[in-house]
């Protein structure tokens, strides 16, 4: 047990969770209090003592699953027993449903029959059946071979492709109307759909868990945990985020902005003391018989910066620009004024889109569809975009303005026109460049961030939320 625990904690640390020694000891103490056969309580005992951040829970669950849920003889035994029951049940259902006798064990079902079973299970919300089906599906479609060095996603993909879950929704609806259920209102249909989607999602998770279980049996927990290791939301790179990761990034962004705004507001109020408040001091001196024993100071009110964001939204860096804009607008109360411009090879102001609606996602959508950013061919041309910016909006850049330039500075070998950035620096309070590429890629190929960067107050690497947050805090 001790070995297992230390391996588990080591893996948590590898996944990026800060687990201290005392927390480790607490966990040991906690599991002593819990009856070991209660898996749920065991998991929560570890979670409560080792994970101190809600965002890390997902990572914890994955590691836990690999280390504990999937091993232990009692688990397998129980499962098999249950599965036996399901099979009997299933066969019965099959007989009733399709009038076929003696279908034997699940292995002898045709694919079509399997699909029908799955559909029924989804419609009835029969969890036990779904679990058994997931097992069967993995066995049949994934084509897993021991020792093959392929990741779990490959098997998952193969299984799902064969199951064709995307069409399942339509089929279920069809089956429902065939069953002669009374017509329902739009609202009910929608709720029904949500329910079905939820169940299909559950089924997918079952399949995933099943694949993992088999992989762990094949390769051992340590190796498996390593392949499953995923970066925490704040460490996901903008430029290489998958769709799921994008979703979790979006979710992580909102609480982050709230925290950031609270912190900035606090900093503004407490940071330093203002000048002496003469009136207030004299008033308080009356308490001390006219002696100004207690000096009073004015509240500091540092000027809020004016922000101009100029972002490249061409393919590769679009996600980064989007997150930066979202972040900036979410805390726009911290700036006296925010204006935003987007470009590919042409440039357009998009401040209005953000003003028109409170909903940032919608504004971003409008930016992507309506902004006029293509000039010639739709490949990044920083030089031309900057020229246009200077020509049209240069006069608005003043000594209070901070200019943020976002992009990877991959200019497709166009003219750099870096004099614009130099002029900006002259007139603006600060000019910063944020680059979503890793520092080691800078100035390679057609990247000319160095040439622009030399005219700015600083070039910052912003590959993930953590770095972006740190920069914005410094800015405001």
């Amino acid at each position, binding site marked *: 047990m001790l070995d297992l625990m230390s391996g588990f904690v080591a893996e948590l640390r590898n996944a990026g969770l*800060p687990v*201290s020694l*005392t*927390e480790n000891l*607490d966990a040991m*103490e*906690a599991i002593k*209090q*819990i*009856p070991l056969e*209660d898996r*749920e*309580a065991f998991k*929560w*005992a570890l*979670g*409560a*003592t080792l*994970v*101190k*951040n*809600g965002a890390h*829970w997902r990572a914890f669950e994955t590691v836990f699953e690999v280390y504990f849920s999937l091993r232990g003889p009692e688990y397998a035994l129980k499962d098999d027993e249950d599965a036996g029951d399901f099979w009997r049940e299933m066969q019965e259902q099959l007989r009733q449903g399709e009038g076929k006798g003696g279908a034997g064990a699940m292995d002898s079902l045709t694919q079509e029959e399997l699909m029908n079973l799955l559909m029924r299970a989804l419609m009835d919300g029969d969890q036990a059946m779904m679990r058994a089906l997931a097992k069967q599906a993995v066995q049949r479609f994934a084509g897993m071979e021991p020792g093959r060095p392929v990741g779990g996603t490959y098997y998952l993909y193969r299984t799902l492709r064969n199951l064709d879950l995307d069409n399942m929704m339509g089929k279920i609806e069809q089956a429902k109307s065939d069953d002669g259920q009374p017509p329902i*209102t*739009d*609202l009910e*249909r*929608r*709720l029904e*759909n*949500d*329910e079905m989607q*939820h169940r299909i999602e559950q089924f997918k998770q079952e399949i995933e868990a099943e694949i993992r279980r088999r992989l762990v049996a094949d390769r051992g927990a340590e190796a498996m945990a390593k392949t499953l290791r995923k970066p925490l939301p704040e460490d996901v790179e903008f430029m290489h985020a998958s769709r799921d990761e994008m979703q979790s990034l*979006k979710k992580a962004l909102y*609480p982050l902005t*709230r*925290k950031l705004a*609270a*912190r900035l507001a*606090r900093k503004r109020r*407490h940071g330093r003391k203002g000048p002496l408040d003469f009136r207030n001091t004299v008033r308080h001196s009356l308490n001390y018989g006219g002696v100004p024993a207690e000096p009073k100071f004015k509240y500091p009110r540092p000027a809020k910066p004016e922000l101009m964001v100029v972002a490249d939204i061409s393919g590769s860096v679009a996600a980064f620009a989007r997150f930066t804009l979202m972040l900036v607008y979410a805390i726009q109360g911290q700036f006296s004024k925010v204006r935003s411009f987007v470009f590919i090879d042409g440039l357009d102001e998009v401040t209005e889109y953000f003003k028109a*609606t*409170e*909903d940032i*996602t919608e504004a971003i959508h409008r930016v992507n569809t309506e902004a006029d950013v293509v000039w010639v061919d739709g490949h990044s041309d920083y030089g031309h975009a900057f020229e246009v910016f200077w020509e049209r909006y240069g006069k608005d850049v003043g000594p209070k303005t901070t200019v943020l330039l976002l992009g990877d500075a991959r200019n497709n070998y166009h003219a750099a026109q870096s004099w614009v950035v130099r002029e900006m620096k002259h007139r603006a309070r600060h000019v910063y460049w944020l680059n979503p590429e890793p520092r080691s890629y800078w100035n390679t190929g057609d990247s000319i961030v160095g040439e622009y960067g030399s005219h700015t107050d600083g070039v910052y690497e912003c590959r993930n939320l953590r770095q972006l947050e740190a920069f914005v805090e410094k800015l405001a």
Partner: protein
Amino acid sequence: MGNRFDSVQAVRDGLKKVNYLADDGIASVAFLADRLGKPVLVEGPAGTGKTQLAKSIADLTGARLIRLQCYEGLDESKALYEWNYKKQLLRIQADKKSDTWSEVHDDIFSEEFLLTRPLLEAIRADDPVVLLIDEVDRVEVETEALLLEILSEYQVSIPELGTITARQIPLVFLTSNNTRELSEALKRRCLYLHVDYPDMDREKEIVLTKVDGITEHLADQIARIVRSIRQLDLKKAPSVSETLDWARTLMLLGIEHIDAEQAKETLHILLKYQTDIAKAAKELSSDK
């Protein structure tokens, strides 16, 4: 000191009796908090029953609930203790002639002149207490340090009096809305519990227990609609308390079966932002 709870299941059943539906996580952590004698840090979105958990535990164990509401600018004279200096002054002036200096000195720094604040009160209590430190993320990072001694050692040091140790270890709950990252030192001393929105079945149960006379059918519909709404990309997802408000409203209006129209008209109880309401209304009426 005896244990308050026998098993995780006992916590769960007990909480159910006082009308709080706990899931596995909540019950397990509450059980551990008692066994390990550690405070619990409860984090999660607003309106998911974090404060209610502490109240219900107090209810369940028959303990007195002592609550410290945190806010910016909270200091030790509000949280821990304060000397009642007016009374001290009176004491000094009352008999100027008779006492010697040392007598007065010993006298005015005795317990008689001590004003206990929630934290000290929880420590000194003879009867069982549950200490709730609400919205701990609102105090400044420096003030957090005030809590450290009491959370790990269950004692308070007063320079003039010495160290006051707890007569019994109280159950301590800290809640946080996560507006800022709490310090490592504080987190390390606590068990961590993240309370999220309940899943559909549990929410339905909650509606059924908390709203009198509601039909199963309506509760089921409510839970389903709320789940659908939470899946949308909203500024503020509806909380459990808002779900309950909504259920009560529907009961008052005498609605037994929600249709899209009625849902739209009462959405403002669930959602508090105009853009959210518009979005949800659009989603509910369109069949995709």
